[in-house]
């Protein structure tokens, strides 16, 4: 099975959103960081994360998919997948 490797630029942009939006220091934003247990995010933050990603990349993300996010890697994948599905979107 192919392992997803997020684009560096995408990781930088999403990490930046996380830092600014949720005051999370850079060193905590590893791909395996758990959104709830390690980064202290909750259900309200999940709503806001979706808004930040949509606004940053000009895309629409399926809100239902937010429910299955567990780690930062999941977030990178979600964003990357949504960008691919949008036309002419450049990370």
């Amino acid at each position, binding site marked *: 099975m192919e392992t997803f490797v997020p684009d560096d630029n995408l990781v930088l942009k999403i990490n930046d959103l996380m830092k600014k939006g*949720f005051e999370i220091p850079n060193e905590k934003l590893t791909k395996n960081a758990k959104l709830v247990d390690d980064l*202290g995010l*909750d*259900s*309200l933050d999940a*709503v*806001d994360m979706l*808004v930040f990603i*949509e*606004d940053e990349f000009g895309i629409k993300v399926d809100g239902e998919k937010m429910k299955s996010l567990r780690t930062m890697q999941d977030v990178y994948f979600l964003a990357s997948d949504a960008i691919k599905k949008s036309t002419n979107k450049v990370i």
Partner: protein
Amino acid sequence: MRVFVTGMGAITSLGNSVESFFNGLVENQSGIKYFPEWENYVGLQTYVGGPVGDYNTSLLPRTVRRSMSRMSEMAVLATFQALEHAKFTDLKKLQSSRTLLILGSTSGSPFALETYFRKIFEKNGPQGQLSTSFFKIMNHSVAANVAAALEFNGSLLSPSSACATSTQAMILGWEMIKSGLYDVVIAGGADELHFLSAAIFDIVQAASRKYKTQPESSSRPFDQARDGLVVSEGAGIVVLESEAFAKARNATSIAEIRGGSYICDGSHMTQSSSSVMAQTMRYAIQRSDITQNEINYINAHATGTIQGDIEEARAIEEIFGDSVPVSSLKGHMGHSLAACGALEAIASIKMMEHDVLIPTKNLVIIDEECRGINLLQKIQNGRVKTFMSNNFAFGGMNTSILFSKV
């Protein structure tokens, strides 16, 4: 049942503490600034306001801060000041069914409302709204956010009556403690400065328009050259306790609430009525245990509007003639809307403490129609044992509260 003030907190356009606020009044400072960016708003003709200076809320956890707009931030800071002043160092002692928070604002955050509706119109729907948007615009935003910051598990009320809000909160607190239902009440109000707050008054021709090049010259309560009010922002919070509760924990009582009343005109939404103002003041005295002769200072609501100041002067004259010194503090700090009642009470309590009477700033030539009362134009020494503080709001909301020295 006697009700005492044991703590006070203030965030104002003159300073972010009770001491800096009062010093600003004593030094005749102005908190009013010109806002050049307001000239870009079509139809707005007032460009002056009283902003609060920088403050720091970083000690609050992000999950508490995220639902706060400026008004809630200021209210939280003022509440912490008041609790510290009252020496409530162990907040767990507040977690009781006999503690009541009564906090309010004029409306939800105008900043958040602007952001919320701009997005609604841009997207033609709710897409893209942050989860915390509504928590900043709900009318009980201030109350709920202060409770969250305190981790307060007790009784909570959230009056919202514009300029009468915090005086209503204090009077209600007095009533609740006197009733025996509560031992402690934290009461007050907060509002934030936004061009929409100024627009409310500008639309009905009640905001100051002529002083953008000399903002410190407005507002000018009771003055012949007044041209309307100046909106400002801030938060004023007091801690009230029953005599028994304060004594049991050795609290220092700063002042005593002797009486208060809140009466609605039931007539015009914006035009105040001197007869109902007088009725409100009389009823406050009637509900107290003092006589009107014991009142030796009146803190007027007077905002600098042409008609409002006249109506209040007439009402005061009807009851007191020119026997009692009167001043308004809105020339110094502007009109902080929901915060003004608590802030003006706090300032008047400080006047009592320091035996000084603060005059009305920018009162150079008293309007002929306001000359029947004893208006202070210069700072002076004066022993105040009991003062009356008035606040009046749109919708015919009239309040009057009485405090005494202890």
